[in-house]
C-alpha cells in the first residue's frame, strides 16, 4: 500500500486524473455500468484473526467488495477499520461500515483519517442499531451526527478537503461513499424522500435492506426513479438467503424493518427437513434474477452473515461470475 498517495496535490484534489472519487474497485465496477456484487463479513467477537481469514477465504474473487460491519446490532466486535485492513491485506476490497452510535464527530473524522491512510476506499455511513439490541445495553449512545450528516461531513472532507469544523485537512481523503436505505421502513412515502436526502448529502452508492417483498421494492424503486435518484447514485439491492422455515417465521415477525411475504415463509416452512437451506438459497437466487431486471438496480449486496461459505454458490448460480477484474 502506498501510504504516500495521501499527499494532496492540486490534481488529485479534484478527484485525480481518472476523475474517480476513490478509485476503489467497487467504484470502477459501478461506473463501468457492470452489475456489482458485494457481500458482508462480520468481524469476530474478539481478536481472533483466524475467524476473519476463514470468512474472507470464501469471498475472495466472487464479489467486488466486502462490507465490514461496525459492531452490528450493537454487539461488541473487532473494529471495522482493523478488520477492513486485515481483509485488504488478503486481497479483498473492504467497504468499511461506520455507525453514528459509538463515536462523535471527533472520533469519526479521526477514524476516517486513519482508515483512508490505511488505504480503505469505501465507507458506508449508517445510523446504527440502537444499543438496546446488543450486549452492552447500559451504554451511552452518541448520535452526535446522524447518517445523513455523516455523509455530508465525509463528502466535504473529500471534496473540499475540510473537516466539519472548517480546518484544512493535511492530506487527501479519497472515499467512495455509501449509505443504506430501507424500502420497508415506515412511513413508506417518506422512504424515497429520505433516499434523496442521502444522495444530496453525498451517497455515491446505496445498499438496501434485505428484500423479500418484491412488490413493495418495485413500488419503492418506481418512486426512486420518479425522483431521478437511480441516475445520481448506484442502487444495490440487499438479499439474504433464509436458512430455515423457523428463521423465516422469526424474521417476518420480529425483525423491525424487514417484511417477508407469506408465500416465502410458506415455501420455507414447507421445505422438507434438511432441505430448508437449499430452498432459502434457491429463493435468494430467484430474487437476484428478478432484481437484475429492475431498472435502476446496479448491483446486489448479499448479506449472508455467518454463512459466508455459501456466497460463492449463490454468485455462481445467479450467473454473477466471473467478476470483472
Amino acid at each position, binding site marked *: 500500500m502506498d501510504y504516500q498517495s495521501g499527499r494532496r496535490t492540486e490534481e488529485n484534489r479534484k478527484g485525480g486524473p481518472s476523475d474517480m472519487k476513490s478509485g476503489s474497485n467497487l467504484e470502477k465496477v459501478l461506473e463501468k455500468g457492470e452489475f456489482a456484487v458485494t457481500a458482508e463479513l462480520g468481524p469476530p467477537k474478539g481478536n481472533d484473526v483466524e475467524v476473519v481469514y476463514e470468512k474472507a477465504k470464501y469471498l475472495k474473487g466472487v464479489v467486488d467488495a466486502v462490507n465490514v460491519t461496525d459492531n452490528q446490532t450493537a454487539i461488541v466486535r473487532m473494529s471495522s477499520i482493523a478488520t477492513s485492513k486485515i481483509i485488504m491485506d488478503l486481497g479483498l476490497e473492504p467497504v468499511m461500515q461506520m455507525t*453514528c*452510535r459509538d463515536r462523535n*464527530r471527533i472520533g469519526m473524522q479521526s477514524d476516517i483519517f486513519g482508515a483512508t491512510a490505511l488505504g480503505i476506499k469505501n465507507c458506508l455511513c449508517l*445510523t*446504527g*442499531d*440502537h444499543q*438496546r*439490541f446488543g450486549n452492552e445495553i447500559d451504554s451511552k*449512545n452518541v*448520535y*452526535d*451526527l*446522524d*447518517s*445523513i*450528516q455523516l455523509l*455530508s*461531513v465525509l463528502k466535504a472532507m473529500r471534496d473540499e478537503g475540510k473537516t*466539519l469544523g472548517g480546518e484544512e485537512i493535511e492530506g487527501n481523503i479519497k472515499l467512495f461513499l455509501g449509505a*443504506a*436505505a*430501507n424500502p420497508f*421502513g*415506515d*412511513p413508506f*412515502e*417518506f422512504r424515497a*424522500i*429520505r433516499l*434523496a*436526502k442521502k444522495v*444530496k*448529502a453525498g451517497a455515491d452508492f446505496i445498499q438496501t*435492506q434485505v428484500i423479500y417483498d418484491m412488490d413493495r421494492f418495485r413500488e419503492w424503486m418506481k418512486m426512486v426513479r420518479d425522483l431521478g435518484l437511480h441516475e445520481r447514485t448506484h442502487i444495490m439491492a440487499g438479499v439474504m438467503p433464509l436458512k430455515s422455515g423457523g428463521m423465516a417465521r422469526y424474521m417476518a415477525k420480529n425483525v*423491525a*424493518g424487514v417484511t417477508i411475504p407469506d408465500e416465502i415463509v410458506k415455501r420455507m416452512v414447507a421445505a422438507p427437513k434438511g432441505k430448508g437451506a437449499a430452498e432459502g438459497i434457491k429463493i435468494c437466487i430467484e430474487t437476484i434474477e428478478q432484481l437484475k431486471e429492475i431498472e435502476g438496480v446496479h448491483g446486489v449486496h448479499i448479506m449472508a452473515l455467518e454463512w459466508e461459505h455459501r456466497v460463492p454458490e449463490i454468485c455462481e448460480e445467479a450467473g454473477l461470475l466471473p467478476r470483472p477484474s
Partner: protein
Amino acid sequence: MIIAEQKPIEEILEMLAPHKKILLAGCGACVTVCQAGGEKEVGVLASQIRMARKEAGNPIEIVEMTLTRQCEPEFMEEAKDAMKDVEAVLSIACGIGVQLMAQTFYDKPAYPGLNTTFLGLPEEHGVFTERCAACGNCVLHLTGGICPIARCSKSLLNGPCGGSQNGKCEISQDVDCAWQLIYDRLKAIGKLENLTEIIPPKKWITSRDGGPRKIVREDLRI
C-alpha cells in the same frame, strides 16, 4: 414539568442505614404534580421506612415536611428548624432540590429519594412521557412541533432510521417513532417540504455537551 419516580426502597434504606433521625422533605412543585414527592408520598414513604426499620429492630425517627418548592433558596428556610434536630435529610424533590438541600444544610448529608427522570407531561393520568431534552437549541419549528432530540431513540435530525415500523420505534413496541409522528404532523399542516431539507449537524454546545449551562440576565439581577 420535571418527572421523577421514587428510588427503589432498598436503595433508600441503605442510604439511611447509619441514621437514627432524619428529615423526609417533599416538594410542592413538579414532583407533587407527577405524584412522586408531594405531601402524600412523604407520608407513605415515611411509614414505609419506619416499618422496615422497626422490622429490622433498628427504629428510625422521621420528621415529615413538604416544602413549597425545593428549588428556591428562600423556601429552604422552611426546613431550617427541622434540620437542627436531625442527622440527615432525605429529599424527595428532583435532583435540583436535593442539591439545594445539600448546599443549604452544608454540614448534614442530603440523600436523594427520587430518580429525576425526564422533562415531560402526563399523557394520561398516571402515564408520563418525555417531551424535551433541554438541548438549548430548539428545532420544533422544523419538525412539526414534535421533538426528535427527546423523542427519537437516536435523536436523529433527518428522518426515521430503518427501524421505524408501523409507527413504532425499533427499540420497543411501546415507543412511538418520533419521525412517524413528525411526518404525520407535517403532512397534516402541509409542510412536508420541511423534510426534504437536510438539517446540518447540530451544535450540541448549547446542550449539556457545552459544559454546565448558565444564563445571566443582567436586566433581572437585583
